[in-house]
């Protein structure tokens, strides 16, 4: 009897503590639920009266703001194409071809990519991009992200391809397919879920990042949303809160949607394993 009472009280205590920690996580975000819809939003928390979409109208009419979102899209999609295609080809080669030292290659790449972080390597990355004449171009941002994300992407995809039986492609080749045909027509459709995982992960990583575009880009019309958002400050240096709040919500939307999609399709644990 006392034992069950003990379990019962533990459960209540844990629920209260969990709820308090939940509040701690929710509080800084509560402001974000209201401010975008409040035409008189300030840094303080207040419930808009009435709820209005005028802030969003202002953002949609702001060419510079929309351009930032567009640039984010260009840079993320560009990076994702390179990461997706590059990692698929490379990890397929690592899994299926007789290149010597395959697993050593994977581990060395992974080691380098975790040691060479954006903040440790900002100087050489800037100098290399400057040296090849790509400073202040969107392609520079795309290339740097592709290089940085590829090792992890290859690692994830290689695991995935290793778990697929070789007999799939082998039977295609017995039937007369060339190795390249076996790759495109047989292996690729089977690997597709793995590629989706890598692509979503790469997209979210590039979409949200600040440092690399911040140091590689100069002209304001090339800035992605993460950097462009800093132009929503008045000349006195105070933030234009109404615009910032609505813009932040629009900018967060793709990440939230992708997360919901992925957790719906792959289950909740997917984002746990991988994040740059």
């Amino acid at each position: 009897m006392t034992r069950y009472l003990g379990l019962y009280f533990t459960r209540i205590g844990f629920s209260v503590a969990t709820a308090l920690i939940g509040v701690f996580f929710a509080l800084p975000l509560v402001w974000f639920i209201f401010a975008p819809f409040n035409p008189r939003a300030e840094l303080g928390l207040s419930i808009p009266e009435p709820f209005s979409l005028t802030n969003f109208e202002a953002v949609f009419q702001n060419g510079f703001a929309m351009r930032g979102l567009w640039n984010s899209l260009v840079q993320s999609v560009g990076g994702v194409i390179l990461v997706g295609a590059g990692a698929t080809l490379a990890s397929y080669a690592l899994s299926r071809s007789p290149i010597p030292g395959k697993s050593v290659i994977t581990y060395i790449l992974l080691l380098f990519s975790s040691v060479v972080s954006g903040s440790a390597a900002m100087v050489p990355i800037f100098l290399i991009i400057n040296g090849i004449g790509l400073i202040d171009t969107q392609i520079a941002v795309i290339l740097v992200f592709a290089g940085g994300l590829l090792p992890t992407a290859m690692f994830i995809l290689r695991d995935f391809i290793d778990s697929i039986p070789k007999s799939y492609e082998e039977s295609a080749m017995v039937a007369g397919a060339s190795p390249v045909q076996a790759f495109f027509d047989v292996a690729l459709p089977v690997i597709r879920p793995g590629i989706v995982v890598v692509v979503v992960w790469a997209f979210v990583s590039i979409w949200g990042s600040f440092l690399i575009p911040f140091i590689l880009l100069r002209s304001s019309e090339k800035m992605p949303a993460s950097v462009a958002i800093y132009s929503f400050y008045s000349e006195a240096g105070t933030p234009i809160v109404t615009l910032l709040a609505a813009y932040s919500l629009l900018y967060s939307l793709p990440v939230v949607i992708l997360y919901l999609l992925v957790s719906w399709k792959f289950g909740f644990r997917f984002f746990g394993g991988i994040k740059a």
Partner: protein
Amino acid sequence: MKSFSLLSRGTGVAFLAPAGLLVGAFVIAPFFWVIFVSFTNRSLLGRTAVDPDFVGLANYFSLFDAATFFTRGEFGSSLILTIQFVLLSAVVGQAALGMLLAWMLQSVPKSLKHVTETVAIGAWILPEVVIAFAWFAFLDYENGTLNMIMEALGFPPGDWLLSFPFWAIVVFNTWRGTAFSMMLFNSAFASIPPSYFQAADVAGASSWQKFRDIGLPLIRGHVVTDLILITMWSFNVFTPFLLTSGGPSYRTEILPIYTYRIAFRDFDFGKGAAVGVVVMLINLVFALFYLWVMRRRAKGVAA
């Protein structure tokens, strides 16, 4: 017998080439380039931008100069600040809070579990500039939500980013990153056979006893993985820059922000590169340790 392989060596190399080129140019080349630049007085502007001199270890001497090492805004002070930041926000903050949450979430109602996980993950997946701005509003002196709550509870309001900037970024980074540890420990706990806990329940064990004697020992490997990963991430995180820009008066200038200031505000690429080399060496120690742990575990499973 020669083993049959699906791709010829030539095709394999061709498949590897695009990724190899990108990683080579933007990961491996920067690793060696930064070491090279750290021995020069390369700058952004002026003569040394095009024709830098070789200065030997001068940049490193200036970083480790005993006279200024501990001065605020210098390398040593930033290094110590970073170590404190990592210990408090990653090890104590993210890992301990994540562990506590993961453990409690095992035995709270489903709906509460779901809501708590959702907000914690929200803090983790939203773009860093958005999060930084949310916190900027949250901590605002005159209107911020935190001071509103403080006043409602009868406490004096605080100008948090001015009076307690370091603690602000520690709590900020804890808040931002706890979801990862929580999810990792959550799935680790879920992989323990429930019969272990049921047996302990029958024996009348308290939750703490179950945690200490069953839960924690069985997920020890995950704890090591988690600690290494979050330590490396927090050590390299640039996000606090978006909240404090490293100030006021360098009090939140952790090493990534220090590197940025030296290289891109003072335009001293040589010295900035030297900081980068030190940071990469520390990263290397953690990464090698991680690979060693992983390999040992892989062998343990095979044996």
